[in-house]
């Protein structure tokens, strides 16, 4: 495991950190920086995962470790126009806009006007001491499941989205966060660290999308923590549409309290090597959790989805639906674990993973797992792998529809279960369009 390359890259990041620190001036004594420093210390002693790690057995991260990335904080600033932003925003509806370039907040391109006074939507760096106290309680609290990448994220976390919803607040408009990444001058490492705190009875819809500035090779290494307090209703849409050469590693930690409802959508389109980790802790009774996932991959794309749902308390329900469409030499992975602890009686947990293979060279790996320690539960998982229904395909052809459109229609229909529950109508339409286009641009 201790291959020399691996050590090199760690040393490189440690040096990068020193450079980063030297630029910080007064801020180096701040709370945030103390977090960074402790994360770096842990990072120094932690190995990057290898294929021998059960959780990484299908994903080889060698291409990432073999590339020299420059942390965004140390790299040259990139010029971004409003045109770049508009191109990648999902429009047609009102939203609060946050734009980050290479993981660093851009005030000019963002628009938070009209935000209710008691709601905080900021980037980490903007907090005053008073606000920080509030954030401290939660920020970067979950560390147990951290791997080397997550520690690296924390060490270089300069900016990120923080959304704090006080009790009884309903945010009418969604928040759309756009992470634009890429650089002409070097291979950049973006480390966004997001925190969403939803108070009691609060409601919000949050869209976080990762989009490319150009087709350069870069690395997004993101972590998002979501806390939903009692009765909170949170819809979280994560859209990953990175460049073809980009690496994307993302961890989302969701903690839910009594009667809260969190729906998480994880939609993966782009990226050369993508890893999505979602960990959910149902830490109280009567919680509802929905995880929806869709991954479209072609060429040599590699998309690895990991989910873990921890039913720690009784009377909760979780629903999980992941669908994959794989073409060319793409590889899609789904590994979903449901843990029902001893106390979590009356748990309902359902998980389904379906994949379609469109080429002879695409590969699917599925690992749905149930770990159950309570007896009065209803749990099930299902996994299927297959190809498009040839009878349906023939039927559409016989109605005079050309072959490629027929296939796109079938795939769109296959993906529909995941797209349909999206509550923002305009977003749903645009995503549907994006799926069709994504498929259409490739030759089947």
């Amino acid at each position: 495991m201790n291959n020399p390359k691996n050590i090199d890259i760690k040393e490189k990041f440690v040096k990068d950190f020193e450079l980063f620190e030297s630029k910080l001036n007064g801020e180096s004594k701040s709370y945030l920086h103390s977090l960074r420093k402790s994360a770096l210390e842990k990072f120094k002693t932690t190995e990057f995962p290898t294929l021998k790690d059960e959780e990484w057995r299908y994903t080889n991260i060698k291409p990432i470790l073999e590339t020299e990335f420059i942390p965004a904080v140390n790299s040259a600033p990139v010029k971004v126009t409003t045109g770049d932003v508009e191109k990648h925003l999902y429009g047609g509806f009102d939203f609060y806009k946050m734009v980050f370039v290479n993981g660093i907040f851009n005030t000019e391109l963002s628009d938070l006007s009209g935000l209710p006074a008691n709601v905080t939507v900021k980037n980490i760096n903007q907090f005053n001491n008073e606000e920080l106290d509030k954030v401290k309680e939660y920020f970067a609290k979950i560390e147990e499941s951290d791997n080397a990448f997550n520690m690296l994220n924390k060490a270089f976390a300069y900016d990120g989205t923080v959304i704090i919803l006080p009790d009884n607040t309903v945010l009418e408009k969604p928040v759309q966060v756009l992470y634009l990444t890429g650089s002409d001058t070097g291979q950049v490492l973006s480390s966004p660290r997001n925190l969403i705190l939803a108070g009691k009875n609060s409601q919000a819809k949050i869209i976080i999308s990762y989009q490319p500035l150009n087709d350069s090779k870069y690395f997004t290494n993101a972590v998002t923590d979501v806390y939903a307090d009692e009765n909170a209703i949170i819809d979280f849409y994560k859209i990953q549409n990175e460049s073809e050469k980009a690496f994307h590693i993302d961890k989302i930690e969701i903690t839910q309290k009594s009667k809260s409802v969190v729906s998480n959508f994880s939609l993966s389109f782009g990226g050369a090597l993508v890893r999505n980790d979602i960990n959910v802790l149902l830490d109280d009774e009567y919680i509802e959790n929905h995880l929806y996932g869709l991954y479209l991959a072609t060429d040599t794309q590699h998309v690895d989805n990991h989910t873990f749902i921890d039913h720690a308390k009784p009377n909760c329900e979780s629903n999980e639906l992941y669908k994959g469409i794989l073409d060319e030499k793409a590889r899609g992975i789904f590994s979903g674990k449901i843990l029902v602890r001893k106390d979590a009686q009356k748990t309902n947990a359902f998980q389904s993973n379906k994949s379609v293979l469109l080429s002879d060279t695409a590969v699917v790996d599925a690992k749905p797992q149930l770990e159950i320690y309570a007896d009065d539960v209803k749990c099930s998982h299902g996994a299927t792998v297959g190809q498009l229904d040839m009878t349906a395909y023939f039927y559409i052809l016989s109605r005079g529809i050309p072959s490629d459109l027929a296939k796109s229609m079938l795939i769109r229909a296959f993906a529909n279960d995941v797209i349909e529950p999206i509550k923002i109508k305009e977003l749903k339409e645009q995503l549907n369009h994006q799926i069709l286009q994504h498929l259409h641009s490739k030759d089947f």
Partner: protein
Amino acid sequence: MAEEHKSDDMKVVEDLTNSEYKWGFVTDIEEVKFPKGLNEDIIRKLSEVKKEPEWMTEWRLKAYRHWLTMEEPDWPKVKYDKVDFQDIIYYSAPKKKPQYESLDEVDPQLLETFEKLGIPLEEQKLLAGVAVDAVFDSVSVATTFQETLAEKGIIFCPISEAIQNHPELVKKYLGSVVPYTDNFYAALNSAVFSDGSFVYIPKGVRCPMELSTYFRINAMNTGQFERTLIIADEGSYVSYLEGCTAPMRDENQLHAAVVELIALDNAEIKYSTVQNWYPGDKEGKGGIYNFVTKRGLCKTNAKISWTQVETGSAVTWKYPSCILQGDNSIGEFYSVAVTNNFQQADTGTKMVHIGKNTRSTIVSKGISAGRSDNSYRGLVKIHKNAENARNFSQCDSMLLSDTCGAHTFPYIEVGNKTAVVEHEATTSKVNEEQIFYLNQRGISTEDAVNMIVNGFCKEVFKELPMEFAVEAQKLLAISLEGSVG
């Protein structure tokens, strides 16, 4: 359900879960013992005692040397005290090495043991039409129906005899499906296997009877390392049964068997197991460690079917697998795994589809009670060239107490777009409404649960040969019956 009803049920539960392991007793027979521990000298001595040819000794030594470089696997979801491999006696055999023509010559005490176990050899000879090659500890003591089988050209003998009499077959196939490099316990087994069964069915022959072997661990501190090799030549058929009970002991005993099946073109092998090693007592003390490697290779149009009923052992770690190498070959796996008290089972299968039009079916039923842990772990792998491969898997778990665990860890790896793979798993507890319904029909809770569990396992039991199905249901009743209220 009314409160008093529940307490009645609880009583039934207690009565039944208190029932002791029925097959626990020890036979006093003089034994030849090796000193404890393992080294090259022990292996040479073992090979010498068994009058093995040079190539066999070398093979064992190669396996041993490889084993030394390996580490004990820790990925199964089981916890147990690690085995001290230097604290095991690697060979023990009844001193009077029996070479009997008929049962009369066999040590009467030994025969008595078999009778206690419910294996009346003579009766079986007459009634059941089953040829039994019973392994008492490590040396085979009785072989029946040899003549009937010999007429058809079928070879059914202890593997130690096969090494001497049919070296060309053993040489060709031993280790061809499970090489000694395969895993830690397979390597250990290859180095020190004491005995086991060897079956060869010639071309186009349908074996006229079910072949069966009863294994039994006796002799304190003797690990058993069985090696079974079954070769079904082109167009042949054989059904093989394996069942076991072991005496009650306080110390953990290791059982690391290797079973290799080879089904050549158009052949079919049906391998059924009822496993009832000593599971340890109610406090989780003692019991057998059962670390088994079972694998079958299917050539063109061949079929291998594994059926297992696992009720015993303290720790089970077993994945009967099929390599579907030939086109149109079929693999099946039917399993019932029952765990109670502190038992732990991590079992499942691997279906590796390599040939075109290969099909596999997996039906696994796990039942956990007491404080046990029951895991299904399986792999379905469709290789790139396995056109039109088809797999269906179903893994259901039933929980009979709130202190046990049921887990499913399936791995699905698909590399061909024409493959259709389905996997389904459910976990739930015994339906209280069903129990209530049966109760009001005058059926006791104990019988009701038995009926429900039997129904739950029906799909698997129907795959078992008749005489085994009966035994399996009895075993299920003993292991579980009424563990819920």
